[in-house]
């Protein structure tokens, strides 16, 4: 990695680049959260499962951030920020991820509840992005749609096991759903960037994905003998860079080495 002239990086302005950043930041930040489970999951198989899911998300983030850098450089004529520059050298306010992915990992019930929501959303998203006017987004989606199908299956199976399991697993799984649901709506909120790129056939309108996700949740949660929560408040602001306190700590840990030793390689 070469050291950019300005640290932190200036804001990304190209709409498609910003769209790629939003999707890439979701994947990158959730990959960090899932990685925290390594050596701490209830079973060693789950260490590997959550670690593998994190790795898929990290791979998707690398392509998305790399594409964001390419598009931004082409649109503005400035030097191209690398995927590493964008991951390590942006400040918190320049991250475009939703609140859902930045929440602390919680217990296993919470993590599975979040996975159920996010993998269903991502699968619906990539299913549509295969038709994107952007070649890189379309190619990434064709691969990622298969990966997220495995992620979703993993979350569905655990939701069924925990919800329809013991009294304690049922209680904690339902509590996980209750904690996650106020953050669901933000995933499907149409922000200015999404509206613009959906109009040009490059992106997908987030609100158009909800009808494909809700029936899955109702079905799975119902069969798991639980109830889909009906929250009264909904998170907002992640796509505009307004985050919870949790993201700052996560980024501090993730960016520490890169910022302390600019340009270091091994």
């Amino acid at each position: 990695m070469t050291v950019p002239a300005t640290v932190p990086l200036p804001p990304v302005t190209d709409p498609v680049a910003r769209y790629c950043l939003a999707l890439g930041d979701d994947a990158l930040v959730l990959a960090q959260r899932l990685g925290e489970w390594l050596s701490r999951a209830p079973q060693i198989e789950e260490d590997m499962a959550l670690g593998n899911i994190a790795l898929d998300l990290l791979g998707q983030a690398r392509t998305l951030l790399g594409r964001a850098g390419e598009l931004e450089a082409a649109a503005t004529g400035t030097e191209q920020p690398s995927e590493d520059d964008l991951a390590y050298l942006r400040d918190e306010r320049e991250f475009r991820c939703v609140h859902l992915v930045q929440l602390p990992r919680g217990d296993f019930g919470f993590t599975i509840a979040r996975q159920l929501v996010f993998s269903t959303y991502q699968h619906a998203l990539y299913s549509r992005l295969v038709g994107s006017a952007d070649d890189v987004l379309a190619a990434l989606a064709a691969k990622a749609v298969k990966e997220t199908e495995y992620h979703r299956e993993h979350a569905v199976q655990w939701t069924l096991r925990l919800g329809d399991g013991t009294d304690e697993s049922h209680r904690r799984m339902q509590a996980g759903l209750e904690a996650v649901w106020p953050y669901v709506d933000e995933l499907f909120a149409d922000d200015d960037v999404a509206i613009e790129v959906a109009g040009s056939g490059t992106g997908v309108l987030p609100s158009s994905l909800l009808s494909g996700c809700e029936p899955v949740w109702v079905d799975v949660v119902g069969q798991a003998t639980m109830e889909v929560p009906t929250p009264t408040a909904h998170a907002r602001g992640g796509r505009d860079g307004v985050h919870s306190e949790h993201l700052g700590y996560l980024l501090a840990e993730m960016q520490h080495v890169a910022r302390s030793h600019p340009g270091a390689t091994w």
Partner: protein
Amino acid sequence: MTRVTSQATTDLDAVRRAVCDVLDPEVPVLSLGDLGIVRDVYPETGVDDDCDVVVDVTPTYSGCPATEVIAASVVRAAARLGYRARVRTVLAPAWTTDWMSAEGRRKLEQYGIAPPSGRAPVRGPVPVTIASAAPRPKCPRCGSPAAEELSRFGATACQSLWRCTACAEPFSHFKAI
């Protein structure tokens, strides 16, 4: 650049063979050719003056950690023939286990990993069940078709973990994707 383009195509064939013989670092019985991830080998045409040939490689999974090692091995394999290669990552069309050769499937089974069963699944409705929707692999040790899934994710992103109910041995299965 001119060095290769001025030579007969057999040189490119030699590079292709050498590159296809490179072994996967995570499943070292499979070659890149067996996996079907080498998509093309062709002369460099001016993008990078320090290279003679370009090798198009399609990653198996978005986050496959072997990607960089594979690229470095490809460059070394070409260098042994006197060529300077550049690896281009090609995302489309996306890799599928359907591209794995019959020879590759045989080698996997001998190595103790059940090869991908059948063709990659076509997407349908979300299966809301604890039972695995995937077709059951045969035990690579005793050949029994009776196996139970322990985990959808195994030692690498491309494998799942199973146990044979006949011989009781656990084994890995290369997932169809």
